[in-house]
């Protein structure tokens, strides 16, 4: 049965891939958290540098995209709510979908495009130029040296970016609310705040942290898997983006389900 064999082989490959991601994440976690105890130096300057490029430099594009998404949500929501005569609910619809789902997800997509691909390209180029080999001959572990600062930067920046994206999305929804649904900026913000509970924001932030881990692990893994030749770097970069998007959506599904079934009724 070649078809069943193919499925089996694909499943094993998939599990091995996820296993590789877990090993990378575990190694980086050891470098980040156990390193000070073991006396090894983790270069905070490198983590700060990464945090700047992952987080701070992404603010303009994340702001713009989440503002637009907020407006789109308001328009789509209003289309249905208007027929029910419940246009005033548009504020809470935007607030809940942004914080629980689209804030973290849109941020993740932007970060994949900007940083996940950059991680794969950076490590892939280093692999092709024998720089990874050079690190090893200098008794520097690539995981400590390259991967750990990236994880640290992601863990810090993803929740920050997501919170900012939530806020910009609410503003985007507010633009519609104020111009078309009879809100003022003040009443729109009040409606938003009364619609949200802490749990909404927290579930979004937990997701964003998980997305950050996935994006870093996939980006670095694809970088290390780069073959010989510089054209392979492009292949790794593309593959990092595609696999990260898939993995982020899969993780999103799992966590959304967990949050749904554990939610207080």
């Amino acid at each position, binding site marked *: 049965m070649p078809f069943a064999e193919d499925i089996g082989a694909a499943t094993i490959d998939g599990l091995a891939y996820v296993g590789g991601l877990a090993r990378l994440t575990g190694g980086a976690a050891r470098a980040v958290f156990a390193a000070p105890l073991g006396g090894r130096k983790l270069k905070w300057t490198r983590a700060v540098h990464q945090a700047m490029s992952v987080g701070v430099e992404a603010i303009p594009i994340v702001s713009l995209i989440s503002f637009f998404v907020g407006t789109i949500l308001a328009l789509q929501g209003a289309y249905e709510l208007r027929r029910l005569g419940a246009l005033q609910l548009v504020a809470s619809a935007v607030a809940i979908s942004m914080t629980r789902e689209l804030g973290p997800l849109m941020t993740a997509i932007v970060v994949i495009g900007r940083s996940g691909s950059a991680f794969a390209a*950076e490590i892939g180029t280093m692999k092709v130029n*024998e*720089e990874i*080999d*050079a690190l090893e*001959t*200098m*008794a*520097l572990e690539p995981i400590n040296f390259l991967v750990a600062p990236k994880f640290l930067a992601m863990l810090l920046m993803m929740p920050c970016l997501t919170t900012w994206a939530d806020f910009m999305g609410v503003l985007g929804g507010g633009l519609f609310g104020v111009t078309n649904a009879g809100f003022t900026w003040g009443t729109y913000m009040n409606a938003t705040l009364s619609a949200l509970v802490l749990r909404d924001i927290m579930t979004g932030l937990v997701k964003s942290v998980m997305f950050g881990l996935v994006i870093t692990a996939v980006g670095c893994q694809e970088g290390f898997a780069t073959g010989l030749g510089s054209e392979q770097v492009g292949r790794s970069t593309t593959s990092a983006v595609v696999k990260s998007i898939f993995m982020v959506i899969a993780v999103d599904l799992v966590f959304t389900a967990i949050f749904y079934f554990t939610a207080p009724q």
Partner: protein
Amino acid sequence: MPSGKESGAPNDPAIAVRNLRVQYGQREILHGINFEAQAGETLVILGGSGSGKSTLLRTLVGLEKPSGGELWIRGKNFASMPENERKDLRKKMGMSFQGGALFGSMTVGENVALPLREHTPLDESTIEIVMRLKLDQVGLSGFEDYMPAQLSGGMKKRAAIARALAMDPEILFFDEPSAGLDPIIAAGIDELILKLKKAFRITILVVTHELASAFLIADRMILLDKGHIVANETPESIQKSREPRVRQFLDRIPEPEVAGEIDYLQMLTGESPPLRR
């Protein structure tokens, strides 16, 4: 055979290779190599492309795992030692890669200073002085703030040598140190190798196919051919060698063409495997 001996004594060879085999997948590249390099000796490994000399070098610095045999560095079994011991040993080894392998995101100075910053408790001012000393030794004074991308191929190579020297290694490995350099700079690198040997008593292992440079720097030469050692002699005696593979390499005689017309036809039509090495 230094069997069972775990601690290094001063008279241990710097490198001892016993029946070393390395394979990539199914293909064996090195078929049981034996040699030693004494401390302070400069050993040149010669061989054409595909001879396995690069694989041998990568195995010696621990980038490839041997599939058989033993590798002893300073009297310690390099393949079987615990990871932290291997790391300590690596700090005493320097490797200069063929293309330089400089870190593109760091300046030349940061590249050279990196091992010192990561592995030693030295003060920053000391590290900077050592970094400038090393750059001066390879003729790159004043280039510490350049990015690797701004350097020519030869300069990259020299910067890589400076980085390999940063920790004052006891064993230095060079992969094709003068390939692709203009003759004056290549001669400068040969001279640097000779000076290092004299001042620091470093064990030096050079992989190259440049004969002139090899005869200048070598205390002993090893000629590799298709994964076997065909000569392991002093430069004087290798020049007098009558062994056909040695003569072929030294006298630069090209490979003979495929024997008969039948073989040739089979090769062209794909009926016989092209590589029968």
